[in-house]
């Protein structure tokens, strides 16, 4: 759909059916994918606003930078593996063989769960080290931003678990293909968000 071509057309001049024999969407992809892309934009706005607030708050004198735990590198690795496995699952979801698909899709979710567990452990470590939420805004932002990211991941895992159950119960791979594709897109998005957050948190 060319945006400018669309909004400059003159609907009062042209009569008759425009388009083919079937209804046509603005984008030649399933509606679910359009909805997900819109949701990703909404989520981007949320994370951007948190980030902007972070930078504005950082300028104020009481800010004491937090040294991010090195365990975050390991967690990042887990999320990268999760994303790669999703991509693999997506690539082979068109094949007839179910075997690799199950392991890839399942493994992807498991690594995401491990990432969340890892994040939770870093929280525990920070708490035991005396880095409480209320003691400094840098700590508060750390908990807040990683928490919101983890919540998004949990939402994704809910969809993942539904698709996984369908796969295990013997649903045809073609029926769950869209779910796999959308999960993959969502995971890549959350990986990018995490990498940006990680870069910002550890460099400030």
């Amino acid at each position: 759909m060319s945006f400018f071509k669309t909004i400059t057309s003159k609907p009062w001049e042209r009569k008759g059916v425009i388009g083919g024999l079937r209804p046509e969407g603005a984008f030649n992809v399933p509606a679910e994918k359009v909805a997900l892309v819109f949701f990703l934009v909404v989520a981007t706005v949320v994370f951007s606003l948190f980030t902007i607030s972070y930078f504005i708050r950082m300028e104020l004198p009481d800010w004491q930078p937090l040294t991010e735990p090195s365990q975050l590198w390991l967690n990042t690795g887990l999320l990268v593996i999760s994303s790669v496995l999703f991509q693999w699952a997506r690539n082979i979801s068109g094949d007839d063989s179910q075997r690799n698909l199950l392991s890839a899709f399942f493994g992807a979710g498991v690594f995401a769960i491990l990432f969340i567990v890892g994040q939770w452990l870093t929280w525990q470590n920070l708490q035991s080290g005396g880095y409480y939420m209320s003691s400094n805004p840098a700590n508060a932002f750390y908990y807040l931003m990683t928490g919101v990211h983890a919540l998004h991941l949990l939402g994704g895992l809910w969809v993942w678990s539904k698709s996984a159950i369908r796969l295990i119960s013997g649903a045809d791979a073609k029926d769950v293909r869209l779910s796999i594709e959308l999960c993959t897109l969502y995971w890549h998005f959350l990986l990018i968000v995490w990498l940006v957050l990680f870069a910002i948190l550890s460099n400030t």
Partner: protein
Amino acid sequence: MAYVPLADRDHEMEMHHPHSWVTKYVWSQDHKVIAVQYGSIAVFTGVVGLVLSLLFRMQLGFPDTANFVDPNFYYQAVTMHGMIMVIYLLTALFLGGFGNYLVPLMCGARDMVFPFMNMLSVWVFLLSVIILMASFFVGGGPTGAGWTLYPPQTTLAGTPGHDLGIILMLASLAVFIVAFTMGGLNYVVTVLQYRCRGMTMMRLPLSIWGIFVATVLGLFAFPALLVAAVMMLFDTILGTSFFMPAIIEAGTPLDYDGGSPILFQHLFWFFGHPEVYIVALPAFGLVSDVLSCHARKNIFGYRMMVWAIIAIGGLSFIVWAHHMYVSGMNPYFGFFFATTTLIIAVPTALKVYNWVLTLWEGDIRLNAPMYFAIGFIFTFIHGGLTGLFLGNVVIDLPLSDTYFVVAHFHMVMGVSPILVVFAAIYHWYPKMSGRMYHEGMAKLHFWLTFLGAYAIYLPMHYLGFLGVPRRYYALGTTDFIPQSAQDLNATITVAALIVGISQILFFINIIWSLRNGEKADPNPWGAASLEWQTPDTPPAHGNWGDKLPTVYRWAYDYSVPGAHEDFIPQNTPESEEPTVQEEHFDPDQDKSLADI
């Protein structure tokens, strides 16, 4: 997965057919039922907001006679009135109510694209309303921080509802945003992907354009409120200092340190200004369709109207700081926001001109919806013009904390959208219920509301010029405020009571007419847009019977030269256009006969 167009998925929609009373009216996935549910919850909440306003007007008009309105309750009532009206009434009613009802019907779809998520949206919305209303019943009552919820006073002991009230308010907002996002994704994707055959984007009625762009605004603006609400919840509950500065409360220093209250204001208004257009754009769209239909003329400058809606939507994201001039800011910053604010007047004025030019030489039918639509043009021009004053920094600074601002925003985003709500309800009532409303009662309702609204808000401009401050529980004795200001306040309160009570006419009318109204023709106004061409009135589940409609023209073929009737529905093929020749009627020939 390969893209499967709607025509091939048509059978899937059948799965949602209701099987019992509960699935038909309670857990319904039908967009029309969900629209009524959304609308009813919003209107109920709105009535609470209306009653609250009458209560605090009693205190303003007749100080200390209404004893139950103490200072705490006054601030709580003002706060809840503002939040309820802007978010839980107008946003929910325009997008959840009208959006749900009209989007699938006007696009020629069987339902929303994700009916289950749509159903979830309305129930989560109800949950947010319940959380909001719960704050009336907890210790300390609802928050009294003003609808903008500015820190630090929101969480300080001097503010009513500073403990549980504010927590419930923020929680309710967060839940509302979740509900809105679920509904909003539905409206946007339905408009983009589920239009029927032949329905191009530029053949959509302006109602859909308004609802579509407003929903996109909502999806991008509500996150700012969510972020602000979450951070403030952390400040309130967990003792963080995102927004809370170092502060002393009643002689005791609090644990907060170094937070930025101005940051909250930026976040709040980054949501708050688009919110004005989230309410206004659907109103612009709906009123365009009502005006065009009842003036029997195509909307003047359709393309320009669409462009204006998009331009206003885009500009609304770069004007937010004009709500914050009094917070103090870099003069260049203020200059920038004053400029963008004045620029937004250009597309808005274009729309007003186009409405007036639509009426110009139209075959105007003064039905009740048309009364309200024309009334809207008046109130919107008045509210819009005072907006031009307030957009300038130097004029805003002295007027900002006075009744002038109250008058301005009530005219532009209180009275104007509400007039459109009434216009739209009366206009689509025959389609929704299959009955006609009582025309006389509706017109009486219009005059009481319209004149009453002017009686309330016109004097407020003068109070503002006098320097009467807003937000005050009582004015006390102040040299620069004469006694006549108090008399004016009393008059305003009487007018407000009359307007408030006269809304009962509206409720009586629509409820009474449900059973006793005259049976409505499927298309009583002779409207060309698709929702009036459904096989059943009210439309049945699935909207279109066996076959989806096909669209051959835009939605504004009114008074077409040579046409048999003065309108041609969108789904009439060119080959079937009834012409005067077919009817063996030639006005020229008749004229020549008459001359003989």
